[in-house]
């Protein structure tokens, strides 16, 4: 029992890192940089880092640099909580970013609320608490968001379908995805479609064919999936292997662009709130160059999400002035308009009770012939 003291001493020696000098805006991030779901988050965090580096290289914000501290939580709630605590108490971060699985939200929210530090969901799905009426300290820039995504997708299906729609659903067996698909199923009924089958697929699955068989045998002419990319695309591939040739819609995660060109499937649609790099806007070129220069290991096409978060952070810090504290930052974020320069259909606007955005924009892409093409241009939804 005496040994605990010894251990304590070792721990103190090993872990007491001197707090960094406060001559920069300290922004802390806890994210799933590694671990199974990291493919959705890691590229975005990488892009965010690139953006902040550029801002710093150009002289920073209000003459001060931004210090971005990354902590990996591997999508584990406990680790995310510990990270947040450390970022707030030890690094004195004025803003916390979450780029991780939804299971980390609750502990991170609890920590930030206790400390009164604003929390920005960047590249992780927007929780309902940022929708109006928003929780005072929570904000979100992420493209995908529960309920609105399904609304937009089903609208797209309705508009595109010629006859009656028999729709099948595919979700991953995680609460978030299941919840959204349940919502979509109800909504589809309201919109006059016939839901025929819903497959909830456990994450570790050797062979998706069994699920696809059931889905196919239910006879849908549309299938909608809102889940991590693996589930979306493997369900599609399994369906195609079984000879199902109808239309499939899924959410356009970061991987969407490269995957569309890999699959070359003209009846596979991705609903997206970010403009794909195929559009080759000036901002896209900019991101590509930055990624190339930094030698990033992720393709530029996966970086829009992180870039947008970077823009929002820059704007928020600018509004907060120097020295920034969490309260000033919160005030600045409550009244913010970020120009996304075409990465999104319109600006991100936050108000006192809407920390999500006042208008949402969706585009739909697919593969046609030899390239990715747009099948529906920005369609906007008001957030109330």
């Amino acid at each position, binding site marked *: 029992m005496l040994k605990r003291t010894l251990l304590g001493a070792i721990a103190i020696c090993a872990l007491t890192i001197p707090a960094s000098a406060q001559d920069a805006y300290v922004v802390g991030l806890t994210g799933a940089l*590694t671990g199974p779901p990291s493919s959705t988050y890691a590229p975005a965090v990488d892009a965010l880092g690139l953006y902040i580096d550029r801002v710093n290289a150009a002289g920073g914000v209000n003459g001060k640099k931004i210090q971005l501290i990354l902590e990996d939580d591997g999508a584990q709630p406990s680790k995310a909580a510990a990270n947040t605590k450390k970022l707030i108490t030890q690094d004195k971060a004025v803003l916390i970013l979450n780029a991780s699985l939804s299971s980390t939200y609750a502990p991170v929210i609890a920590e930030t609320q206790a400390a009164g530090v604003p929390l920005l969901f960047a590249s992780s799905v927007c929780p309902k608490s940022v929708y109006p009426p928003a929780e005072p300290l929570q904000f979100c820039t992420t493209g995908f968001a529960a309920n609105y995504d399904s609304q937009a997708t089903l609208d797209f299906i309705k508009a595109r379908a010629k006859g009656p729609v028999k729709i099948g659903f595919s979700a991953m067996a995680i609460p978030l995805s299941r919840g959204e698909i349940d919502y979509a199923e109800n909504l589809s009924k309201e919109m006059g479609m016939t839901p025929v089958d819903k497959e909830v697929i456990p994450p*570790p699955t*050797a062979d998706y064919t069994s699920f696809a068989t059931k889905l196919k045998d239910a006879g849908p002419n549309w299938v909608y999936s809102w889940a991590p990319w693996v589930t979306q695309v*493997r369900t599609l591939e399994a369906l195609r292997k079984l000879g199902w040739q109808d239309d499939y819609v899924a959410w356009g995660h970061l991987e969407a662009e490269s995957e569309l060109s890999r699959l070359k499937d003209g009846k596979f649609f991705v609903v997206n709130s970010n403009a794909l790099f195929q559009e080759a806007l000036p901002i896209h070129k900019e991101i590509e160059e930055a990624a190339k220069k930094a030698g990033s290991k992720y393709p530029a096409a996966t970086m829009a999400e992180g870039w947008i978060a970077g823009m929002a952070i820059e704007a928020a810090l600018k509004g907060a002035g120097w020295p920034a504290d969490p309260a000033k930052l919160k005030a600045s974020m409550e009244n913010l308009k970020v120009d996304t320069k075409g990465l999104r259909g319109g600006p991100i606007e936050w108000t006192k009770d809407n920390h999500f955005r006042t208008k949402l924009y969706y585009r739909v892409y697919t593969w046609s012939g030899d390239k990715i093409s747009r099948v529906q241009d920005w369609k906007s939804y008001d957030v109330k």
Partner: protein
Amino acid sequence: MQLLINIVVLASIYALIACGYVLIYRVSRVLNLAHGELMMFGAYLVLACSSLFAGHPVMALCAAVILSIVTGALVYIFLMRKMTGEMVLAAILTTVALGILVRGVVVLVWSSQQQYPAQALGISNPTFTLPGDGHISLWSLVLVLTNLAAYGALFGFLRFGRWGMRMRAAGQNPLLAAQRGINLHGVYALAWSLSTLTGALAGILMALDSGVTGSMPVIALKAFPAALVGGLDSLGGALIGALIVAGAEVLLIYYVDPLLSDVVPFLVLVAMLFVRPWGLFGTREELDRV
């Protein structure tokens, strides 16, 4: 028809993985919980080899297979050899630790993005339509055939091969086998190589069919009930066990609730453990002697 194909394919996956568990358990009474990770490692080796032998998919695949055999032997020589004679639990935990290590290394080297070895090799995965409107993809078909070939070869090898005989002897009574001049370390290393080979084959073929991510080892965990239901020391049992578990899983997904597919193999397993803990075809363990 499609259901039948699904069962056969899934059973082949499980069986090919399960025979790796059986090989090692039968020879050394150690349960290799790193089997899933070694399987995934095999799939990633294809990725590595595809860039090494760009444009020669056959060469790359062969290289990956050979490398995985070597990996198995190295694991035994540098790690498990130290554990022979130790508590069985310690040996099993060593494999757990090995698994954790391999997972970490794989993420470090290849990141945790979904990867497509088939694309890297430049080979496609067409689908065949069978009579009765059943569909099967090329690599699933290859997997089923590989599985049959692997089992055939293993049966022949254990029954008639010189080293196969030695493996059986070592499994039944290591002390006696050693006294009769059988090189136990050689036999164990061989078992590890063969087990890693079959595991890697399963991993490679699955990766060719549908890509590979860091979460692949979980599949091996689900193949584990198959090995146990059949009896951990029986090859034939693993085949039957895989059929039972795969059958239960596919039928439950289709007729009851897809969510159950995660739990059911283990429920089957628990039921089996209550009725016949040593499995359908396994050997019953001896009574304690005092």
